[in-house]
């Protein structure tokens, strides 16, 4: 079913040879590391813990609900965790569950059959400690198979946030350092958006933007008067196509893109396999081994340097070692921290690269939940229009604590939202009564709602951290993570402000607020976990230098979101890739000079 014949993935890779680099993880960060290093001639082995799935057959992006026997639901025996389960119970959430398979909450969005093989089974992958909705995708490409696609840049309001407001730490880089790499990511992967010239949300090199519908235009025009911006969803989606990539189609505005969880089976939306990994395999320099669960980074007992990675085959449970001159960790923020902590040796008794004691700490993310729903009265009873087929509706960039200083909280939040018709009229669940009038109400209001929800920066705090549980183990006998992580007062006050500000913006635009939700979702819900191996100039208070290179172990790089110093309120994927590009370019050049 794939368009282009993809080189077979080598299950029986040659493990007798020493690779230039071994990359652990195949998501946005691992894929980018593979791309940058292989195009510079390095021989790379990529280890992915999950399977190589026939992803188009999993996603079935255009399947009509009625063409699926259970309208998209997973077979009996599968269960997705709910908000209540996350909050009433403590992890491990699948313990003693009567269900055969337990998925994270993402499986409960109304399309669980499409992601049941992408998300991990919580039964096999337990964790302990405080409340946390930890969403994991073990498959080639990781979470990029189902990501939300909002692709934003950070600015010096983020990189130099401490200078701006005194809280936390500045990043060891500035926007000027990263800008050329954001440009490279834009051009190589494609991004859709509309230029706004904002200092706090720099523009990308955009392809054609998606469009706004009537309600969204109305809100955009009104916000202009408040000095705020509503911009079409900046999506990591190629809308004009990519001549250099034969694995991806451009976006044809088809599909019920609002169907979440949902990937894009024509790969117009970026995913790591078609965007980065298959092209890297075409160089002849990349070998990919799926079903490979890395559980220790091996070090040379004499030098203390990394010499390779020990892994288990997830199917056969056999143990292997991969040898490499450089080890690149890109297993996702929390799994990367886990792998470093698991890699204890005589030289590195607290875990690899952890002389600072900061691995697992400064854990941060985005807080979400609060939002508003509005009714645009003029649109009630209007004939249906095509408002779907877009990767998203709109984004309202941060407007707090830029020039002003909020009394209740530092940092800011943005809103993601959208309005108009979609494949399922969700408002029918809230419409009262029954009968002909109910049916007409549902029909008349189907395109008249607009909704938005906030995504706010969670402050990086040393006391928010993960470590290894001394007792609990996963299905492969590997110690699990234990969470010590909670939102604080800054997040709570920010969330209160989201509802107030959201209501104010809708009302100013003449949109009647019919729902205002101030409930914070649980820790982890945004799936934007960051910061567990942060960069910095001081080896005593940071794990990595500005090139995501371990302060302690020169041939160890950690190129995913764990390196972020603060969460910003902008979605992290594009920054993860720009940073990985910059670091791997540095690494390739140092490698050739014999310096790593």
């Amino acid at each position, binding site marked *: *079913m*794939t*368009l282009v014949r993809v080189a077979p993935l080598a299950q029986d890779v040659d493990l007798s040879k020493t690779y230039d680099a071994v990359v652990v993880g195949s998501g946005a960060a691992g894929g980018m590391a593979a791309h940058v290093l292989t195009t510079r001639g390095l021989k790379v082995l990529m280890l992915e813990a999950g399977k190589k799935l026939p992803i188009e057959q999993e996603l*079935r992006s*255009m*399947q*009509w*609900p*009625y*063409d699926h*026997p*259970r*309208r*998209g639901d997973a077979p*009996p*025996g599968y269960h997705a965790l709910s908000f209540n389960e996350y909050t009433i119970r403590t992890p491990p959430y699948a313990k003693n569950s009567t269900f055969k398979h337990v998925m994270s909450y993402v499986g409960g969005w109304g399309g669980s059959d499409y992601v049941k093989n992408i998300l991990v089974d919580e039964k096999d992958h337990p964790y302990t400690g405080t409340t946390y909705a930890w969403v994991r995708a073990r498959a080639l490409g990781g979470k990029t198979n189902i990501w939300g696609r909002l692709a934003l840049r950070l600015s010096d309001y983020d990189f130099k946030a401490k200078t701006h407001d005194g809280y936390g730490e500045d990043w060891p880089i500035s926007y000027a350092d990263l800008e050329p790499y954001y440009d490279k990511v834009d051009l190589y992967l494609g991004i859709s958006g509309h230029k706004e010239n904002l200092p706090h949300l720099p523009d990308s090199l955009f392809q054609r*933007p*998606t*469009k*706004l*519908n*009537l309600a969204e*235009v109305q809100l*955009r025009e009104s916000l202009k008067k408040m000095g705020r911006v*509503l*911009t*079409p969803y900046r999506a990591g989606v190629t809308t004009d196509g990519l001549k250099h990539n034969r694995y991806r*189609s451009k976006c*044809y*505005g*088809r*599909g*019920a893109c609002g169907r979440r969880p949902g990937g894009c*089976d*024509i790969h*117009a939306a970026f995913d790591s396999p078609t965007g980065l990994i298959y092209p890297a395999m075409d160089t002849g320099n990349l070998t990919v081994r799926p079903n490979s669960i890395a559980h220790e980074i091996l070090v040379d007992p004499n030098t203390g340097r990394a010499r390779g990675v020990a892994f288990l085959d997830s199917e056969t449970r056999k143990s292997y070692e991969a040898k490499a001159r450089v080890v690149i960790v890109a297993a996702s923020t929390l799994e990367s921290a886990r792998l470093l902590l698991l890699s204890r040796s005589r030289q590195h008794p607290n875990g690899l690269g952890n002389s600072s004691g900061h691995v697992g700490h400064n854990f941060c993310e985005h807080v979400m939940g609060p939002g508003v729903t509005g009714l645009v009265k003029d649109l009630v009873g209007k*004939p*249906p*229009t*095509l*408002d*779907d*087929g*877009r990767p998203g509706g709109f984004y309202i960039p941060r407007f707090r604590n830029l020039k002003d200083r909020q009394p209740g909280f530092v940092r800011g939040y943005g809103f993601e939202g959208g309005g108009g018709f*979609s*494949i*399922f*009229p969700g408002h*029918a*669940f809230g419409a009262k*009564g*029954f*009968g*002909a009038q*109910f*049916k*007409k109400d*549902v*029909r008349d209001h*189907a395109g008249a709602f607009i909704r938005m929800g906030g995504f706010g920066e969670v402050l990086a705090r040393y006391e928010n951290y993960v470590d290894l549980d001394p007792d609990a183990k996963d299905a492969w006998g590997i110690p699990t993570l234990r969470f010590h992580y909670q939102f604080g007062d800054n997040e709570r006050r920010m969330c209160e402000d989201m509802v107030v500000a959201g209501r104010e913006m809708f009302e100013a635009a003449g949109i009647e607020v019919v729902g205002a939700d101030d409930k914070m979702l649980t820790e982890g819900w945004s799936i934007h976990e960051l910061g567990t191996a942060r960069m910095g100039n001081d080896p005593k208070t940071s794990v990595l230098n500005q090139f995501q290179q371990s302060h302690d172990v020169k041939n160890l790089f950690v190129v995913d979101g764990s390196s972020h110093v603060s969460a910003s309120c902008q979605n992290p994927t594009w920054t993860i890739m720009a940073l990985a590009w910059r670091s791997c370019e540095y690494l390739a050049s140092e490698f050739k000079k014999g310096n790593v």
Partner: protein
Amino acid sequence: MTDATNPKGETLSRREMLEVTAAAIAAPLLKQGPAAVQPALQTGPKFFTGPEFALLDELSDLIIPTDAHSPGARAAGVAAYLDFRLADSLDTEQQTKWRSGLAAVDALSKELNGQAFLQGSADQRVAVLTRIAAGEQDPKTPAEHFFQELKRSTVRAYYTSKVGIHADQQYKGNVYQRGEFAGFDAK
């Protein structure tokens, strides 16, 4: 493609078809479409008894009836779909809830009208449903709790059906657009 998937009857030229590389992926799925549709009930209900099924069928069609605009829940096969899901379910608690819920409706009907729901006149049936729908926001009695579940399930089944998506909602998406997104440019 069926007419339903492309209401405007637009077809892509061969040239465009080649450009739309994605079509190569989507086509096999579309072809298998109708075969995968829930078949009309041919062998009788699998989970519900005959009388239970008839009651559910009527209740769903009272919630979403046929009107001048589009067919209702009965035509959309809502009861058959719910019967299939419950027969397939491993959740015995859920199954019990549906059985006792339907029984509660009949019991209420006997209390109000002196006869089972389906034996009542059209007005009497609506009266029973109106009574249990009154507690929709804050259900207290078993029948009121059941109404919540019944309505939620009917809504989900109807608006994911062919009738619900195409005839009633006239949903325009899930089709290839011809190079331009629908909507307005940000200015």
